């Protein structure tokens, strides 16, 4: 049975060997954790927190952060994935209370058939509620809905120093704001109340518009913001000065539907050889993708899973990048500074190291939900780079310069290598977040970007 006495937990703990099984989605950097706690029930979490050493723990969900913000190299993790119970739902207001390990996929499976959908969703549904809060994730509707944290009504937080703390915009509001985008450092989330959104069914009215310059992207974005709930663009990062991309926009359709189950595609069995993705195969892919979508231009009715989660159908797609893994680079450039964005794209194109289609989106101008929330008014660009050692890191450093000069910043959830100085520039207020960190918590990311300072 799962109830274990403290003594038997202690004994079992001693048997546990360090594990290299817990990585982030980018599979870089490689880490070894001394121990991974796997509480099956919320009532087991306080004991784990109390018996841990200072700075030794970090909550872990599904490991979908790309870099090291979900890792705690050489220390311990609390795997919250088994804490995945839906504790209540108010069918009047659409507020669901769930434990931190519940996934967005769970919520869709349970509530979409009842006519409710996520208020904000990132590009994968395989993230936990805890992870969505800790990174204050955003989606294609950022210009309308803000971030995930903006739809969080209340949460219960296990703290090693104060026990279970309930916080909301009205109660312990500062702890609430610190926990949103708090990178898991403020404690282990016990439960969260999330405001879902009414939808008619699983369908999205979507349309795709090809564009050939960043200015026309901006025009499309401005023109669409008022009429479309979801907007995003795919950009061919090999195109350099000859920008080309596909602008995708959509709204929830009024069509009702019966078919809610996502469709599955293949599953990658193992890490592909590093050569499988080279500049020629990727260029060819981008070409194919561009022309396939440009040909389909115009409106169509698509299911929510192919609209929001195209990559989810290929399970473990991160193994495409081989054993060394990959880095994702997501920056925000303020004030729609097209010159800086062009410079970033140009440096990538000249390096020939870019990868599959980049993602470009114009953020909205709503206030941030969390102290360390990443989204801010401006343009955000995200793309993948296969890890090829020093040349990859050098390219990203050269992109950093442009981002920094533009007054922008990088997204911690995607980062495995930014310098402390760039972190400081991206989040000038990070020191006011420090008092809210739980004394038992730390992460590889946090040590990397703050300990030198």
């Amino acid at each position, binding site marked *: *049975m*799962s*109830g*274990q006495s403290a003594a038997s937990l202690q*004994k*079992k*703990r001693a*048997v*546990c*060997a360090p594990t290299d099984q817990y990585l982030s989605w980018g599979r870089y950097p490689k880490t070894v954790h001394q121990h991974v706690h*796997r509480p*099956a*029930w*919320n*009532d087991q979490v306080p004991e784990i927190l109390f018996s841990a050493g200072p700075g030794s723990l970090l909550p872990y969900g599904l490991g979908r952060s790309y870099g090291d913000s979900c890792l705690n190299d050489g220390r311990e993790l609390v795997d919250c994935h*088994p804490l995945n*119970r*839906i*504790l*209540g*739902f*108010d*069918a009047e*207001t659409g*507020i669901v*209370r769930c*434990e931190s390990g519940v996934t967005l996929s769970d919520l869709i499976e*349970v509530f979409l058939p*009842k006519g409710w959908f996520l208020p904000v969703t990132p590009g994968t549904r395989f993230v936990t509620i805890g992870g969505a809060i800790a990174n204050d994730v955003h989606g294609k509707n950022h210009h309308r809905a803000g971030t995930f944290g903006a739809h969080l009504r209340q949460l219960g937080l296990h703290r090693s120093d104060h026990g279970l703390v309930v916080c909301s915009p009205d109660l312990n509001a500062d702890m609430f704001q610190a926990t949103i985008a708090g990178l898991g450092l403020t404690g282990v989330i016990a439960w969260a109340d999330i405001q879902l959104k009414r939808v008619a069914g699983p369908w999205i009215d979507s349309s795709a518009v090809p564009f050939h310059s960043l200015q026309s992207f901006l025009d499309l974005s401005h023109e669409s913001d008022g009429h479309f709930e979801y907007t995003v663009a795919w950009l061919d990062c090999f195109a350099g000065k000859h920008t080309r991309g596909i602008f995708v926009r959509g709204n929830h359709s009024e069509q009702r539907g019966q078919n809610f189950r996502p469709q599955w595609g293949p599953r990658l069995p193992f890490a592909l050889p590093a050569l499988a993705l080279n500049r020629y195969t990727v260029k060819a892919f981008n070409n194919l993708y561009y022309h396939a979508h440009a040909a389909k231009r115009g409106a169509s009715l698509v299911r929510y899973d192919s609209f929001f989660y195209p990559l989810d159908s290929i399970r473990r797609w991160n193994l495409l990048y081989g054993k060394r893994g990959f880095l994702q680079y997501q920056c925000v450039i303020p004030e729609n500074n097209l010159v800086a964005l062009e410079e970033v794209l140009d440096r990538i194109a000249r390096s020939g190291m870019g990868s599959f289609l980049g993602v470009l989106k114009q953020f909205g101008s709503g206030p941030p939900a969390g102290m360390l929330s990443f989204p801010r008014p401006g343009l955000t660009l995200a793309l993948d780079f296969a890890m090829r050692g020093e040349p990859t890191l050098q390219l990203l450093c050269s992109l950093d310069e442009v981002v920094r000069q533009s007054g922008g910043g990088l997204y911690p959830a995607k980062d495995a290598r930014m310098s402390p100085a760039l972190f400081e520039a991206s989040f000038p207020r990070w020191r006011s977040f420090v008092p809210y960190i739980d004394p038992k918590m730390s992460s590889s990311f946090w040590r990397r970007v703050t300990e030198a300072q």
Partner: protein
Amino acid sequence: MMMTITTRSSTPRTMRMQKIVILGATSGIALEIQRQLARQGQDLLLVARSAQRLSELQSDLLARGAQQVLTIAADLADVRQHAQVFDFVRRSFPNFDTVLLAYGTMEDQQDAEASVDVLLDELNVNFVSAAALLTLFAADLEQRSTGCLAAITSVAGDRGRRSNYVYGSAKGALSLFLQGLRSRLHPAGVKVITIKPGPVQTPMTDHLAHSGRFAQPERVARDIIRALNRRAPDVLYTPWFWRPIMTAVRHLPETLFKRLAF
């Protein structure tokens, strides 16, 4: 503010069971079975020690589609609490048709060798209390000439091994008990199912180094539900490959087997 919801999803084809009693509802394998049954819109009655955990479980299963979820908190290792549990089940869940016994403990073998108390606890939880509880439910089903009685034992019960024979002997005794019970209830048309999982990745085995031979609970739960729906033999090995493996292990001569250190 919070209220729980009940969904009426239709019951899938060829579902024989409708009202299921789960003894040890907070065990790792039971959790997964309950989730899958909830998606099929079944009625559940859950028994476990912690009222708090049962209430969390109840909300979750109702949200995920279970028709009805009743709970009662009791320590089933304590035989004196059995009558009360059984009364509650009969009163509030009449005409239940399936009983699944899913609880068990696995203490460290060396502790059980060093301490008679640990040894007796292990035998009591895994065998004595289980046999007592199954006897209560067996009489009821036998009288009604209907239903299915299932219990999770273990491949460890197929042969006494140096590394795990205390747990193994309790589970082996339970398997033998179920064998006899099956024969007794056969004339009444009550099905008795022995479930023998290999190692499964659950909190019970969390302290062991997990290797490839550990099965995922989702998969084991699927096999068990198929067996409860009468689509498997009386004795289920899950995953299936443990059947040929254990057949071979059972047939090794004792003179050789006693020299093996596993």
